[in-house]
């Protein structure tokens, strides 16, 4: 039983803050993935939980007990290292049995328990080998076996699959998920692979430069990224991010940029002399854009017609404005290159000064250089603050007398 709580933890190396004020609460049985680019502090955070690195600030709690000062061996956690750290002079059997041996268990008990674990991981035939006589995948299993052998409160894993080839990685991913389901233990899993994060996690913590950008389920993190960083990190290709400005036009809000006009489906009755101009970042996922040739002018009929609640994020409903539905947003540009992914293709288009990727089912029938119009439904657009990068949500005014003059920042 382990619930892991990280409270406002910071780790400094000289002037560098490897981890900067991160707070997490991992409930018992959760599968938390720490996700982020290289050097964002994932390993450092995990090692602080494990007790291998001590925080410069903040606390680490296991089941409500403050273990910040406790050595690693007293935390009842198991860790799988990225390098596996199998003891090179010990056989597979003794490697797996090591945690029990360190706890001075009886030889017969150790032998029995190792046999059980070897059975689960299909290592029975390898027990007498030394690590160097194992393949990468087998080493990975032994490392997993060493963690499993003593039924710890929680499993910590630092990119355990990064040394495996694509096929083995997929297989092992499924196995670890299965293991988590069966054991019901808490897992904290470090990766920079978003596919692992999306498929394995019950919750994902996205880190950037030591800071926690967002904590949520894989769906939340993908569908409503809390910052431009998260939006640009997840997805392949990731979300298109364009510098845009929010303006009000005919009483409605639009995000506009060169070649871009995206009605946001938000009413904003303008008063004399009042002009809204707010710099922002417009985000659209490649799969939410549809392509048509520029010659085929006119609004796309299927893209409009969202009567209500078509705010940039679905969770903040529009202030009940009875607008007849926002017209489809359009981006005008030209195709620069096309990538064939087999089932789909990615068209990279130039819109104004920005590069926009579009995911389309094959054959999309476009050629490089062709002028195109990209359309997107307003509810599939995301807005982020230009300065802070945080997500912008529309907050309707409480008092209907006062018109909304600002788009507030929600963090």
């Amino acid at each position: 039983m382990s619930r892991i709580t990280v409270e406002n933890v910071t780790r400094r190396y000289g002037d560098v803050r490897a981890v900067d004020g991160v707070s997490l609460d991992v409930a018992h049985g959760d599968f938390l993935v720490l996700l982020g680019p290289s050097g964002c502090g994932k390993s450092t955070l995990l090692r602080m939980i494990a007790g291998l690195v001590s925080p410069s600030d903040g606390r680490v709690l296991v089941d409500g007990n403050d273990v910040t000062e406790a050595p690693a061996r007293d935390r009842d956690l198991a860790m799988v290292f990225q390098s596996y750290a199998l003891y090179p002079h010990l056989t597979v059997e003794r490697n797996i049995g090591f945690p029990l041996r360190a706890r001075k268990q009886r030889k017969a008990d150790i032998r029995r328990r190792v046999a059980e674990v070897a059975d689960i991981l299909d290592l029975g035939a390898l027990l007498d080998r030394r690590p160097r006589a194992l393949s990468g995948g087998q080493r990975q299993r032994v490392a997993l076996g060493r963690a499993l052998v003593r039924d710890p409160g929680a499993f910590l894993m630092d990119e355990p699959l990064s040394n495996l080839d694509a096929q083995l990685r997929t297989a092992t991913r499924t196995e670890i998920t299965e293991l988590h389901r069966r054991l019901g233990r808490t897992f904290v899993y470090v990766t920079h692979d978003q596919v692992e994060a999306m498929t394995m996690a019950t919750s994902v913590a996205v880190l950037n430069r030591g800071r926690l950008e967002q904590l949520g389920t894989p769906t939340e993190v993908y569908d409503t990224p809390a910052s431009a960083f998260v939006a640009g990190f997840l997805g392949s290709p990731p979300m298109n991010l364009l510098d845009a400005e929010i303006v009000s036009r005919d009483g409605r809000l639009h995000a506009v940029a060169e070649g871009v006009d995206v009605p946001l489906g938000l009413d904003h009755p303008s008063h004399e002399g009042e002009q809204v101009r707010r710099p922002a970042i417009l985000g659209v996922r490649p799969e939410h854009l549809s392509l048509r040739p520029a010659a085929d002018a006119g609004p796309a009929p299927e893209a409009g017609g969202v009567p209500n609640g078509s705010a940039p994020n679905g969770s903040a409903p529009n202030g009940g404005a009875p607008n007849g539905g926002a017209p489809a947003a359009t981006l005008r540009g030209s195709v620069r290159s096309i990538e064939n992914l087999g089932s789909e293709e990615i068209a990279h288009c130039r819109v104004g000064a920005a590069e926009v990727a579009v995911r389309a089912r094959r054959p999309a029938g476009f050629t490089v250089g062709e002028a195109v119009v990209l359309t997107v439904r307003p509810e599939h657009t995301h807005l982020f603050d230009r300065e802070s990068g945080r997500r912008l949500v529309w907050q309707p005014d409480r008092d209907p007398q006062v018109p909304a003059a600002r788009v507030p920042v929600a963090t």
Partner: protein
Amino acid sequence: MSGMFVEVAPPTLPAPIVAPAAAGGRGRTARRLARRLGRGVVPYLYLVPALGMLIVWIYRPLVETANYSFYSWNLSPTQPATPVGWHNYHRLFTLPELGGSVWRTLLMIIGLLPFTIVIPVVVGLLSREVRGRARSIYQALIFLPFLVAPVASAAVWQWLLSPRTGAVNRATGSSVNWFHERWPALIAITGITGWHVLGFAVVVVAAGLASINGDYAEAASVDGASRWQITRWLTLPLLSPTLVFLVLATALLFAPQWTFPLIDTLTQGGPVDATTNVYYLLWEYGIQSFDAGLASAAGVVFFLGFGLVAAVLLWISERVTIHDD
């Protein structure tokens, strides 16, 4: 409807390019052969200087030594060497001092092991936490005696260990006459040699410890092992190649050879042969008494003997050590 299915052919190599030089004739082939031969020879040409040095300075003297061991000769260029068969070997093995000198060599090896293994390992384990500049300074300080010429240190130690005025006796209040009593002399020679090589061994052990991947100790501590368990079960086994190297160096280099300048300047093998090890014996009989035949025979025997010791130690090390890869 008429028609048929046709298999898609697997990709094939493009048609081989026919060598246009096929009609080039014999001169061409010969030249190509010469070029290939030349290419084969070149690597060996690079090795020639090194091989030449080895042959001139190592193998030729070795063969000559083996040769002289079957002659009686007093090293004088004017005297002819007379063949005596196995006589030199017979004399060597019936030397009364031989057994004693081998034994004392063994004692010196055992006496040196604390300096080359035990203290360096303890110091290395304890000083792992020292980092940065402090570590470099400390290692430089401890390495320093290794750089002092043995004859110079012999002079200093002679003064330190002098019976009445020496700092050692004054500090301990003893009246041991270090270089003129049997056991104290052996202990002094071994101790001074140990003082010499200690820094070297400490640095070697520190390097060995530094080369052990820190992940192992971290993994073990998460696995619940105590510091002592980690040391016993991981650090020392992983350090074993380094330790075998140090045992080898002690047995083949430090105990028989590094003691020599100290013995020669401080005790001359005495008192009553108490500090005569095999190398000093070789020196006494061969060089000092101008008996080239006996010295050569001893040289050959020691060469084979130490070779055997080295082979056994290496064999053991192959068995017990793990190379971390």
